[in-house]
């Protein structure tokens, strides 16, 4: 059984049968809303936010 352990010591079992889910839009409403937010606001503008603090 192939595993991967993160730097925080969390172990994950590698199961490539899960590849069948890759690329599938399983949560279309959520993805749609995420893209709407990104189109409106982009990603956080770090310099702008830092100047505000």
């Amino acid at each position: 059984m192939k595993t991967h352990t993160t730097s925080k010591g969390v172990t994950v079992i590698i199961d490539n049968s899960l590849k069948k889910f890759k690329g599938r839009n399983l949560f279309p409403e959520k993805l749609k809303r995420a893209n709407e937010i990104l189109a409106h606001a982009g990603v956080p503008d770090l310099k702008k936010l830092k100047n505000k603090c």
Partner: protein
Amino acid sequence: MKHSKYLCKAEDSFLVFKFSSEGSKGLVQKIVIYTETGSENVYNLGFGDYDSQTGSMSDRSVTNNGDSAKVLATVAATVYTFTEMNPAAWIMASGSTAARTRLYRMAITNNLSEISEHFAIFGYNCEGRWEYFVVGKAYEAFMITRKENDDTL
């Protein structure tokens, strides 16, 4: 999050994770999937119950297995794993309902000092703008990225 976590399986690009919630309702399979958005390096975190018999996924079902803290800690652990493999990634997350988004906000608040060791966290506010996460403030969505990506910190 220092809560106990479920053991996860993942495929080798760490975009899809699976684990089983165990509780009073029995075993419920959960899937966490990181989906590319229309913005480069920004992924949407989706999470829900998977029915292996029908192949259907739902992010609105209420499992009521009595293990929500452990489930959320497990989902949080996938963020650590995914961003270790994709250090430049930004991850967007929100609940499928306002109540779930509030639950995620509470989980972030309760684990803020631990999360802030490695990540910069933002909330999408009612003005339609991103800001650094503020405790006690309501947000529609959250964005998280490794602190190394925030060169202002």
